[in-house]
């Protein structure tokens, strides 16, 4: 099937938020929302959760521990050189641990995000509605194989009723 999704295009984010409420009241499952700007409240309405902060925390902990292990190995185990009368295992580690923890956390979070989003530099943009990068907002509803024509009609009517300027089917391969 080529037409896999139903899309409603809106021109205002407040109308979009109201439309989402209206659709969800009628038991329509919204799969995604496209917007040129971040809209407050969309995440809560979509019920999307992310595990990215947890991943960052884990990277940070791993970073702290491994950097400490490295410093300990270099200056206590492998090459124990005393200078300034300071102990070998010292507090001066803290600054390097601090900086490298941030570095490890940021870099690996960034890589994780890119891998999960299947992104790389120079990738062609695949958007169901290209104008969502300019001034339009879109609601995307998945058209499941078992969905009857009457149901599709109902969803399309709802989208029009809630203020969509255009309702169309999309055949852009879109998976999330």
């Amino acid at each position, binding site marked *: 099937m080529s037409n896999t999704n139903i899309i409603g295009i809106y021109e205002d984010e407040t109308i979009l938020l109201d439309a989402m409420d209206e659709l969800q009241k009628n038991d329509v499952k919204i799969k995604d929302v496209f917007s040129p700007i971040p809209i407050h*409240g969309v995440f809560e309405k979509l019920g999307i959760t992310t595990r990215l*902060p947890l991943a960052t*925390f884990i990277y940070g902990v791993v970073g702290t521990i491994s950097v400490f292990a490295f410093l300990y190995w270099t200056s206590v185990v492998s090459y124990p050189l005393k200078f*300034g009368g300071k102990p070998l295992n010292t*507090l*001066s580690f*803290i*600054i390097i641990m601090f900086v490298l923890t941030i570095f490890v956390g940021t870099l690996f979070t960034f890589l994780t995000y890119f891998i999960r989003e299947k992104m790389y530099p120079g990738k062609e943009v695949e958007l169901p509605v290209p104008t969502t990068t300019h001034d339009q907002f879109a609601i995307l509803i998945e058209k499941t194989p078992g969905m009857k024509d009457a149901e599709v009609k109902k969803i399309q009517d709802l989208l029009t009723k809630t203020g969509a300027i255009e309702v169309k089917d999309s055949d852009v391969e879109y998976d999330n």
Partner: protein
Amino acid sequence: MDKKLQTGEGFKVITLVLIAFGLFTVLAGFFTGEGTRTWANLLLNNYYFLSVTIGATFWMALQAVTQSGWSSAYIRIPQAMSNYLIVSFVLWIFMFMGLHDLYHWTHVDAVQHDAILLHKAPYLNVPFLTIRFVLFFALWIFLTQRIKKLSAEEDKHGGLTYFNKIEFTSKAYIFVLAISFSLFTIDWLMSLDAHWYSTIYAVKKFIMSFYHGVTWIAAIAIILHKMGLLPMLNKSHLQDFGRYIFALSIIWGYMWLSQYLLIWYANIPEETVYYVPRIMSDYKNYFYGELIINWLFPFLFLMWNRVNSNMNAMLFVVAVLIIGHWVELYMSIMPNTIESHSITYIEVGTFLGFAALFVTVIVWSLARITLIPKNHPYYIESIEQH
């Protein structure tokens, strides 16, 4: 909308009993020959609650200067807290009777034979100290009371005139605080060890007061919300308070490390003299406890986003930080004064007495102002924050 804070008889009885208990411990301390310990505790608690008030009023001024929207519904809490400055001034006058017990530099004959103290004498002498003390308190009380009065006028008349006037007064207050509170800290805490040099001590104490001022504001906002007096408090406001505490815990930890690590690295005797009694004695546990309670615990606990939107978890953090604040000041004052690390009834009693008095002043002030600044230009923005 114009509901006022009301307190039951039980609250009055408990606070009165605690204040009486505090007074009793202070008197008992003097009559059992524990004079220095009692003065040190009076200094600790006077400074503790003054720094909370200074931090809270600094937060209030900061919100006006940055024209913050989200916080405008809670601006009456620090305004009520600012009344404690007057009480603190009165209580602090008694501290002048204990100068000889606490400060080595007030002994005129000792100063004559001490090159460092003689060098510092033009600044560290009792008449100049008195002048600074009166001047600083006069400025703080004048400016905070002016902000409070203008804010009350705004409730009656509305418009932007008062908003702009408050912003201007707040700018003046921040300038005044930056200099005066730093000098005040040097006068009363750092000069306990007058032979020591440090340029970051006052900054660290300023951050400390800001940090703990915000935690008190957050706690009062949550408690008032639970009493139904600030119904607009939602998860986003809680998160903002949580972010404030989280960020300030990091800044505080940064200041702690800046002071400690540079002194540790340089290893200059004049500087390390501060840390010798703190690390190389029985104070060691408090020393590391201070860092764990004030930095590590809030840093790791508030990192978890769900904690920020949970009122009871936030109150728990505040309760821990109230102890952390005390431990920090205990570590600043006691090794230079009583030189023994035991916690007796004097420590507990004076703290409870002062805390009860502080809470009484806040409640008394909150009951006498309208809690919701309904004509604040950003009030609508604040309640619709999401």
